[in-house]
């Protein structure tokens, strides 16, 4: 067991209302929005960043996305120790318990929309996709349509830029890792572009298709992050009023 997971296990014992899913400490119940705490590894041995994670589950993703998350402890590195975890566990428990009410307030897509509303205007494709899907979840289709159009434009631009900087065949063997990364990025952009076009088409024809798309992504993410037992948990953390 890794030192971070071991620490989170001990923290979860101190805060039984939380669920440890894989390596993240989740606040139940999960309703389309992942609310959790996790350690981020660093290049420095035994030192970690502690994150307050907020992420919509109704989006395609390959891992925890930190776009809407924050570092706790003012961004300081936390030194975890396997030999003497008590001190670190106490410190982490305090940090999490202090932050718990603020995180527990984000329950559904509307809360998430308020959480990310300051980012409106951000034209990064991943943010535009989340914003568009959140607009759909809160029944603001006009804004969603506008956002999806902007997303397609941005993805087109980005894809063109990626193609222009593609590693030539002659250098492929010499820069194998970079080439593989580039292929992965190209594939990712193509997939996002396809999703955006599907969303655009669904908006024009049948918006209910979007609901099926988002539910599929949600199911996959629940499985991916092992969140099933947090979906209908009786133990819930009351949000601070």
């Amino acid at each position, binding site marked *: 067991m890794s030192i971070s997971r071991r620490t989170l296990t001990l923290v979860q014992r101190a805060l039984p209302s939380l669920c440890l899913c894989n390596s993240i400490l989740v606040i139940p119940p999960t309703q389309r929005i992942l609310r959790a705490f996790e350690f981020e590894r660093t290049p420095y041995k035994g030192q970690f960043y502690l994150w307050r994670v907020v992420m919509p589950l109704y989006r395609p993703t390959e891992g925890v996305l930190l776009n809407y998350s*924050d570092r706790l402890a*003012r*961004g300081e590195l936390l030194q975890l120790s396997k030999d003497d975890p008590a001190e670190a566990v106490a410190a982490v428990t305090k940090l999490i318990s202090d932050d718990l009410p603020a995180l527990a307030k984000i329950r559904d897509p509307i809360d998430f929309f308020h959480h990310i509303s*300051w*980012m409106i205007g*951000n034209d*990064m494709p991943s*943010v535009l996709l989340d914003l568009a899907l959140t607009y759909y979840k809160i029944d603001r289709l006009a804004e969603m349509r506008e956002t999806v159009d902007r997303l397609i434009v941005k993805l087109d631009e980005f894809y063109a830029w990626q193609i222009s900087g593609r590693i030539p065949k002659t250098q492929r063997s010499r820069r194998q890792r970079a080439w593989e*990364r580039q292929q992965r990025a190209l594939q990712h952009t193509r997939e996002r572009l396809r999703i955006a076009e599907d969303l655009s088409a669904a908006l024009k024809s049948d918006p209910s298709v979007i609901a099926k798309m988002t539910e599929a992504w949600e199911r996959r993410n629940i499985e991916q992050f092992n969140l099933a037992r947090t979906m209908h948990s009786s133990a819930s953390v009351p949000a601070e009023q």
Partner: protein
Amino acid sequence: MRTLAELLGLSPPLGNPAPPPPFANWALSSGAGAPYLPPPWTPDLNDLSAPASRRAPDFATGGILGPHLAAHAAEANGLGGILGPVAGMFGSPPGPTTTPESDALAVSFGKWPSEFGSANSTDTPFGLNQNVNLPWVPQEFSSPQVRETTEPPTPRTIMRGTDDSPQNYTSSGFSEPPPLGNNGTGTSLSPEYPWLQPDATIEKRAGYRDFGGFHGSNDAPDRFASGLIDPALATFDRGSNDNAALMRTLYDGMTPTASVNNSANAILSAAQNASQLQTTGLPTDLAPTQRAQFFPLDLVNYHETPFGTLNAAAGQDQNDFRPHVRLDFPGTVNSPGQKAQYGRFEQSYERETYLPPGQIQLAQYVHPSAITGVPKIDSTSQLLADTLKDTADALGRVAPRGIPANLFGIQVHVDFARRIKALDLPGIGIKGVEQSFSLGGLKDYGIAGTIRTDVYLKDRSGRPIAIYDVKTGNAKLSPARVEELREAVGVPNIPVFELRLDDLTAWPR
């Protein structure tokens, strides 16, 4: 050891014993004891008792400004300028090229009352700059030191030949400068950085308290944040008047000490050789890490300049004294024949078009090509360069002996990240430091495909608008890496800057 006054046959005024010059070994390296002989075309000019024709500030003792202004001032007070005391017997020159009382530069030249043999001598070495021309350092305006005309004129000393002076400074009876000490905030770094000397500290820059104006050094000692970059200025804080330390530094390898304790005046322990400072990795404000070489090629043949040029009209080039002095910073010298800063260093008798100073970057510096025109990015670049300088002050710019370069690089990154997070800069905050990206989103470090940025700057909507990467040693940010960063962040053509520790510069990539 005889003093210069003894050598030149001068008696100290009022019976005060003349202290030996601190660099007595340098003076009169040839022909010691032989009085200066005037050129054959200047007969009867060796009468030193002749009164000066007018009162003028005593520029002759003048600081580190070198013989140029000394000559200028001496010309004004009838002492013959660069020709030495004998030339003063020519009589009044056509007129001083500047009015001493209104010339701040000239007035400041006489800031230190270091009369040769006077009772109130300080540890400021006098007479040095009469031989060795150093780059002009802007000095604070100070009250003029008016010399009584009854006092004997300060003799000029002559150094001949190449630099055969001793490399190790030995005190000659002057009060020793205080040892290096920590007069900062007391934040000792020794527990965290064991290779540092015990009294090394993190320099507190007061300007950061006033963050918001994006000029972090407003309240801090103004060393590098504004003004032109001068190769000599970088060795000391602006306004530093310690000529002894400067000269010793020059001869001991151009290692500064001013930034160690952030004091206004540079101090150098006589017991501590400057070269030791470099090898132990103490903070240094100098970019060159190699020892500088000082070449006093020919300081003697002043009298070979035709006299007519001295009496030419003010502002003419003929009045510029150009001694054969060259300072070489290994790897960063002005190219041969190139005019140096302020025209103070140049090869003799060569006039070339002015080139803006910029060949030697000794301070934190944002390269002009790194200026984007976006105020938020540009000001952040400067702030990060300033912060990197703080890191360099604490850790040094090169890996200390015995510390692997990669370990030193990690230490630099940790220290730099800690400082940036502590500053909580707008647009960076605590999330913009050591953040990993993958496929256009923020991800955990270490996940396959992620790329970590040292610092990224975001706009009001959280969109990354600049990426900064710290590089130590010879590491460079390759174009391929830049493309990877842009691709991972998901913003094509986002400016990527390389913050280089070795010369504290920010470069666009």
